[in-house]
């Protein structure tokens, strides 16, 4: 494999407090050096002037729909969408058909991920057999086959006893137990946040408390068991306060937030746009403000997309009947730069930390650093590029984006996984002899 030389970008790597202009050399799938170094003979030189070079983003929460709904997304299209969004690795949720609840299913996802030759794909195994919330799935065998965490995802673990057992049992394998916090009797039939907008639109609401009751339950169970609970897609101010409470007491709780919960509110549902329908639902400005603050101060550890492609027929229907979820891989970076970095809520190093370093650390994954010897998973992005989102151009099969048509700032330029360039968009590339070639992704 030819060495890759990323030249003249701003190297942003919070794992070593790096934030300076320099070069980055990648060889043999590892970071071989950085700073004021020269390109070795035979290296593929990529001009990164004006661009940010950072550890590759890792999305610990996405839905790739394979096996079961290959019409909506496959592991290959999902992994390519991830690469196009600057992600070098994604964790696939187990709500597939059949459910990813055994070593064979986990192994299938690993193999399909390798064949995709784009972003790395790590399976998340189910907590319970069939995600039915009854019998614990075989964590040990799934971890042996490549699972990096367990979760029953969209089917929240209603039984406190099962959640307790999962947290205890997962300790042996040192994996996080991810919970989608939703008290099912409170949220039943809900289509959006409960509040003035749901009351006006005549849609059944999901109160913030449906999430918060499970957040505090899970935090208390983490305290009881010493297990690592990771709370998926936090959406309310109350959840932030409860997580803060847990962390202050040294409880092993971590949490994620999605770009849409940091940028949109329930107001977006007016007009019954089904691309504003997801679970947890878009909340209020007060919640958005609290979540932004929590990402900044570290109460919420990382950002994850909850990428959830749906067929357009399924979204093109009555609001209450439409499925939950939006695609997020190819807009995440721009949504975060536009809504958090540009207004001054978050610095670029903090952004890189929440999208790359912290996910790698908490999920014990390769990457997350530009230190010499680290896996050569690198994101290069243009922090100032203004572009209009056109969902029809997504690498994902999903088109269900609430950002379609919006102008955003910040765009992935090049993604390197294990030393191979897997995505490149309009970057001038210099060959060894110094001649410039304008290679555009086909």
């Amino acid at each position, binding site marked *: 494999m030819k060495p890759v030389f990323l030249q003249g970008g701003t190297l942003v790597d919070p794992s070593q407090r790096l934030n300076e202009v320099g070069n980055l050399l990648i060889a043999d799938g590892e970071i071989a050096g950085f700073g004021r170094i020269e390109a070795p003979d035979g290296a593929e030189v990529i001009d990164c002037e004006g661009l940010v070079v950072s550890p590759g983003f890792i999305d610990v929460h996405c839905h790739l729909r394979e096996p079961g709904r290959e019409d909506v997304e496959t592991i290959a299209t999902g992994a390519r969408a991830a690469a196009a969004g600057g992600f070098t690795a994604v964790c696939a949720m187990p709500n597939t058909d059949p459910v990813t609840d055994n070593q064979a299913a986990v192994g299938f996802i690993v193999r399909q991920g390798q064949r995709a030759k784009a972003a790395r794909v790590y399976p998340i195994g189910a907590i319970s057999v069939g995600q039915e919330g009854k019998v614990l799935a075989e964590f040990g065998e799934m971890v042996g086959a490549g699972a990096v965490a367990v979760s029953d995802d969209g089917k929240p673990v209603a039984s406190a006893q099962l959640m307790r057992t999962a947290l205890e049992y997962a300790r042996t394998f040192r994996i996080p137990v991810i919970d989608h916090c939703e008290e099912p009797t409170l949220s039943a039939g809900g289509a959006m946040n409960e509040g003035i907008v749901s009351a006006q*639109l005549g849609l059944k609401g999901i109160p913030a408390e449906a999430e918060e009751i499970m957040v505090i339950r899970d935090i208390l169970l983490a305290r009881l068991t010493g297990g690592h609970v990771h709370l998926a897609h936090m959406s309310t101010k109350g959840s932030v306060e409860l997580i803060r409470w847990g962390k202050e007491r040294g409880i092993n709780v971590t949490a994620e937030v999605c770009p849409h919960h940091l940028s949109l509110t329930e107001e977006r549902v007016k007009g019954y746009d089904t691309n504003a329908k997801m679970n947890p639902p878009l909340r209020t400005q007060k919640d958005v403000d609290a979540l932004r603050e929590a990402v900044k101060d570290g109460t919420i550890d990382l950002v994850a997309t909850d990428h959830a492609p749906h067929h357009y027929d399924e979204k*093109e229907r009555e609001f209450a009947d439409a499925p939950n979820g939006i695609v997020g891989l190819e807009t995440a970076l721009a949504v975060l730069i536009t809504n958090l970095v540009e207004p001054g809520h978050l610095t670029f190093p903090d952004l890189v930390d929440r999208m790359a370093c912290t996910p790698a650390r908490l999920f014990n994954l390769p990457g997350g650093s530009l230190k010499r010897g680290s896996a050569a998973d690198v994101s290069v992005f243009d922090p100032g590029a203004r572009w209009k989102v056109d969902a029809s151009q997504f690498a994902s099969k999903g088109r269900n984006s609430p950002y379609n048509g919006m102008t955003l700032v910040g765009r992935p330029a090049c993604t390197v996984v294990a030393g191979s360039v897997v995505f490149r968009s309009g970057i001038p590339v210099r060959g060894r002899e110094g001649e410039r070639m304008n290679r555009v992704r086909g």
Partner: protein
Amino acid sequence: MTGTLGKDLLGLEELTGEQIRLILDTAEPFKEISERAIKKVPALRGSTIVNLFFENSTRTRISFEFAEKRLSADTVNVSASGSSVSKGETLVDTARNLEAMRIDMVVIRHSASGAAKFLADRIQSNVINAGDGTHEHPTQGLLDILTLRDKFGDLKGRRICICGDILHSRVARSNIWGLTKLGAEVAVCGPRSLLPNAIDEFGVRIFDRIEEAIEWAEALNVLRLQFERMTAGYIPSAREYNRVFGVTRERLDRARRDILILHPGPMNRGVEIDSDVADGPHSVILAQVTNGVAVRMAVLYLLAGGKPELAEAAKGGSGRGREDRE
């Protein structure tokens, strides 16, 4: 065609007070048509209207049909059972098929909130919302308001309380929007389990006890209690509902003034309203039904591009520049 109301009537939230007054004023001359021996004027002659009822309805569907026929429109009724909908056709496909048949207007009743807007966004025909889920039922709101206006004249400062299941009521929402836009003071009264949690943000007064509402109000709009709410656990029983929230003769007799009684129907006599109240001297429940036809004629006429100032003339002849043949 787009008139003074825009293309569609989806809810009273979108209308201004002025537009609501315009509809009510336009309804006035249409009231008289229903009193004639020959109840027909040619204002919508040549227009084709589909009444698309995905949810059962007797009163609203018949009221719309009379309004359409009395304006000489050609109408087709489609109900969910026995149509392609029962074969699994999606709403978007139904909409496209209707559009392909070159119709002028669709009146839609649907169990999903937002269904009327969904349709309106996808077809060029005028769409009239005849009730979408728990969102709005604008023509019901308009006919309630017309009935109140018949009794009170100007509604500014008038105190009207909507009683019952506000949470699931599209009628309540349309009434709240319409009445507040006309300057009325609006209150709601019902068990808290049947009020939206965010009800205080609607800008209405809230009464926990029906006695307090009766003490305050000049008119009560009593909503139907849907029995499925009890199986869903919102309230314990119809018996207790009547004892705590029922609009009864005894409660009204204690009021200092006469209180106008409205009910959008169909009534559960002995549950939310007692028979001697429904049939009593201050009940305007049947006047609401009569006004319903006039209000719907006004809405159809205005959406079809009819000039409000010509509504009186349209009764005798054509509101759309056609020759008078009546």
